[in-house]
């Protein structure tokens, strides 16, 4: 019973991931792609626990799930830091002042 439930959950998760993968391919902005990768990453942590239940080694696979969740979070933060052109508050004020002077 438990094994059938785990197989069902895995297959259903896999099917529901297909629209998210579509968003990786078709996303107009890089942020869309990164968002979809983030969603898939958290769902992979769940899939690892499901695989653990199937093989009766949940105690081992939970560690992988922890590592994967950590890595996913760090990668999301790093990519968002890499993609944005961060402007500090002082620079922003300088920009606004320059605009005022021009007008």
């Amino acid at each position, binding site marked *: 019973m438990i*094994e*059938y439930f*785990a197989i069902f959950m895995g297959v259903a998760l896999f099917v529901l991931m297909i*629209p998210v993968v579509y968003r990786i391919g078709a996303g*107009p902005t890089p942020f869309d792609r990164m968002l979809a990768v983030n969603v898939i990453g958290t769902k992979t942590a769940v899939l690892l*626990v499901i695989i653990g239940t*199937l*093989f009766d080694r949940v105690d081992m696979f939970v560690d992988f*799930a922890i590592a994967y969740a950590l890595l996913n979070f760090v990668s999301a933060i790093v990519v968002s830091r890499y*993609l944005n052109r961060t402007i500090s508050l002082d620079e922003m004020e300088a920009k606004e002042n320059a605009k005022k002077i021009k007008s």
Partner: protein
Amino acid sequence: MSLDQTMFIPVLAESLQTTSSPTPLQFFGILLGLLGLFFFVGTAVGMIRFPDFYTRMHAAGKGDTLSTMLMLSGFGLVSMEDLSMGSWLLFFKIMGVVLFIFITCPTSSHALMRAAFEDDEMPMTEKDLKKPSAKKK
């Protein structure tokens, strides 16, 4: 699923032969997992249907948090076959993952949102939304 289909995974075939009825705790876990799947449908459909990045972020940031939490805690209950020390430790470990995801999922979505906003990706307003739908009709 017949045995022939599972022959390529021998371990799986063995575990499928010894099926037992679930305890009440495991039944509750199964219910939680199905509920999580139900909420993940909202995320998956929203990722396709919503019009721009910020609205997609609503679907991803919220649906992802709750569905992952529900599914993981459901599997944490499913893996508790007996109330021994080891299974309690396993349960607490999985609850640790749940807590971690509960904290980090909104944070990472906020970081992505901020990156997009500072990259001059303007959010859609109501007027932009009405235009393409009017063309379709």
